[in-house]
């Protein structure tokens, strides 16, 4: 983009013409009552125009910039106050427009054409967005133009700028959340590198991250909406605290039960083949397949205190399930079962039987080989299975609700609170649960990294 220098005649003529038309229109429009001819602001603009004209003629100012400034000044002086709400606003927009022209001119001149086009399109879009769509949001328009001028010369910065603009206008109710997500996505997309240029993969990354962000939005919204005080208040409320403690306790108990019975079963399924193995594997999925409420009813049909088995348990062992703590654990065990068995099975499958055999040849008996070899090797998988099962047990609502609605575990407490006092009061409790889970997951991920795997850690290669 190199402009051709205009011929000397045009160089002389154009600024004069521009200034003459400014003055002429100023007089004519002043006579017609369109503008105040003797208003200080308008006179000031006229003077500045004259000074600029002189500067351009004596070649002390850049020709293009000087002409552009003169044109902008004339336009704003003559019609600006009718487009903008008042003269002051028009003046402010004039200043920002001058900045935009300055930046735009240099971008057109110094950078490849696509940058200039992106700049121009951005300007048009900002105009559309702030002046037309938002019906004269001049203050924002000015802010945005300043941002555009500062970021227009790098696509990466421009993308960040647009991310902010869109987050704070179009995505307005969730401005901060979307801004956060955009600013997570953009660096990822811009820093993505492949050995061979691969636009398909990049588009896939962009689309995938956008999709993921949309899913993550509610979580972010929920967390960002809370103040530390409201969260502290929730933690101090006895009902919420009891519910949280109860959830942690029962879910841990349920996970322990599942570990004791599920891990051996998973090992057996992994190492043995027997008749009806497929059936057993299918049965594992039942708690996933059936709705939670159905699971609750089903459990109640058998373990309810009026039902034969439930009453037998009550009479023989004094054990009540429904409406009591064991009921919660039972329901949680039921729904978390597949989340325990399936990953555990996968973990055991990942340990080759030949390794066990090698251990046997080295003198380990079957128990020793399991304890010293298979268990440590499957540990990470088993750990994740435990975490999944725990999370599922702690998060169970339907089945637990039918078995034991009170004392309430956290999901039920959330529901009760929502029923009683509505969304605003419930949000902090939910945020606390969410934060707790996120922190827990983070810690567990860190723990899981320490547990050895079958695969070599990367930094330790010979």
């Amino acid at each position, binding site marked *: 983009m190199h402009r051709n220098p205009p011929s000397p005649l045009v160089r002389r003529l154009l600024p004069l013409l521009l200034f003459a038309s400014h003055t002429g229109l100023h007089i004519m429009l002043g006579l017609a009552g369109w503008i105040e001819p003797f208003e200080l602001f308008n006179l000031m603009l006229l003077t500045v125009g004259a000074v600029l004209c002189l500067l351009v003629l004596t070649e002390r100012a850049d020709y293009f910039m000087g002409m552009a400034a003169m044109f902008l000044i004339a336009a704003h002086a003559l019609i600006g106050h009718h487009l*903008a*709400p*008042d003269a*002051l*606003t028009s*003046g*402010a927009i004039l*200043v*920002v427009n001058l*900045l935009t022209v300055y*930046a735009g001119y*240099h*971008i057109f*001149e*110094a*950078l490849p054409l696509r940058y200039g086009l992106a700049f121009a399109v951005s300007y048009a879009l900002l105009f559309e*967005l702030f002046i037309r*769509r*938002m*019906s*004269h*949001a*001049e*203050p*924002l328009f*000015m*802010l945005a133009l*300043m*941002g555009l*001028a*500062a*970021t227009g*010369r*790098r696509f*990466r*910065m421009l993308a960040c700028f647009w991310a902010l603009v869109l987050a*704070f*206008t*179009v*995505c*307005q*109710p969730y*401005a*901060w959340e979307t801004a956060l997500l955009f600013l997570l996505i953009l660096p990822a997309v811009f820093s993505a590198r492949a050995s061979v240029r691969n636009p398909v993969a990049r588009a896939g990354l962009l689309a995938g991250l956008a999709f993921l962000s949309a899913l993550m939005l509610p979580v972010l919204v929920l967390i960002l909406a809370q*103040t*530390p005080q409201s969260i502290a208040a929730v933690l101090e409320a006895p009902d919420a605290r009891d519910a949280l403690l109860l959830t942690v306790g029962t879910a841990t108990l349920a996970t322990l039960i599942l570990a004791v019975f599920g891990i051996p079963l998973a090992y057996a399924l992994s190492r043995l083949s027997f008749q009806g193995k497929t059936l057993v594997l299918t049965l594992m999925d039942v708690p996933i397949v059936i709705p939670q409420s159905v699971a609750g009813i089903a459990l109640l049909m058998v373990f309810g205190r009026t039902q034969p088995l439930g009453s037998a348990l009550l009479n023989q062992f004094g054990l009540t399930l429904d409406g009591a703590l064991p009921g919660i654990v039972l329901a949680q065990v039921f729904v978390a079962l597949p989340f325990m068995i399936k990953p555990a099975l996968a973990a055991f499958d990942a340990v080759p039987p030949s390794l066990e055999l090698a251990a046997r040849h080295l003198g380990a008996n079957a128990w020793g080989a399991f304890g010293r070899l298979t268990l440590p090797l499957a540990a990470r998988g088993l750990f994740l299975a435990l975490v999944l099962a725990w999370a599922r047990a702690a998060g169970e609502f339907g089945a637990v609700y039918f078995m034991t609605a009170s004392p309430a575990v956290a999901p039920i407490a959330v529901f009760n609170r929502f029923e009683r006092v509505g969304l605003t009061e419930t949000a902090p409790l939910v945020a606390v649960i969410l934060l707790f889970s996120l922190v827990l997951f983070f810690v567990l991920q860190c723990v899981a990294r320490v547990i050895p795997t079958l695969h070599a850690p990367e930094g330790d290669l010979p």
Partner: protein
Amino acid sequence: MNDILSAAETWLSGAFGNIKLVEKAMMGLEGSYVELLTILSLGLLAVLPAIVPAQRRQRWRHLNQAFGIIIFIYVVFTCLGVFGMIRNFQRGLSEIGRENIVALYYCSVPATILVTSMLFGPAFCGWICPTGALQEWIGLLTGRWNRKRKAAGYPFSRAAFAAALGVAAIFLLWMMHLSRTRMFFVEDASIYWSEVLVLIVLLLVWNMRRWDRPLRRLRLLSFILVAAASALSLRVTSPVHLGFAKVYDPASLLSTVMVILATLVIPRVWCRYLCPWRSAIAWAGRHSVRAIVLDSAACTRCGICDGVCDVDAVTKGVIDSKECHFCMKCVDACPHRALSIQDDWRRPCA
């Protein structure tokens, strides 16, 4: 064609539906000239460094700083306080689409500062910032002594250490007084920042060469803390906003005095180690179009530029863009004209 346009129109109005939240859309800026003056004056002040003649640049700069102080005290006082600007930026962004004027009001100062820094270099620090000007001018009192100390490689001196201990003692006594006279909250961050300032001064006077560079990283920590506090809606008070806030705030007065005392011992101590905005401006400045460029053929490595720099951003002509305040003292001091200010629109992002 018209069908397509109207379909696009319909889609757009659906997609941009949220924008209709604007309530006082037609309200002009009449009566809220403050925001506009902010933008205009800050913009002007930021452009000035490029316009003023090189002969008397430093005198112009001091004039600019004086204007900066006036602007910040009489025009934009409510947006101010170095911490308040971060908080208000956040608040202003939150107001977009609801109260656009308020949004502009809160965002104008920080946005102008960042934008001018990205275009014209981090000149805000050296040419406008009233806190910087205050420190620079106070620092003139002990400037000769500090320059000598700097030339000697910052030796550990008993006198300086005694002075620092004196600063610490004043801080403690003042705290004793304050703790009896008013209630303190977590939000009264200025006292914590001044406390850290006192500790920094002690550490630096003990061994400046060892601690100077590492401690500068505290700026980022400072920024993160203030941003986090603003996200948590804690109304942290800022250390040196005394003159600008029109509010009687004893904690702020204390910290202002602490900064003034500390800057006698170490020039520009607040900017160097604690100013949260400095990290943002340095980031913007590294992406800036304008930069001070060294002509290494002309440079004789004489080290004169090192001596004039208040913030130790130059070493033998090489400028650390993270530290540079764009005061251009080094440009003016160079006897060989090896340093020059250049605009480069293709400059890659650092």
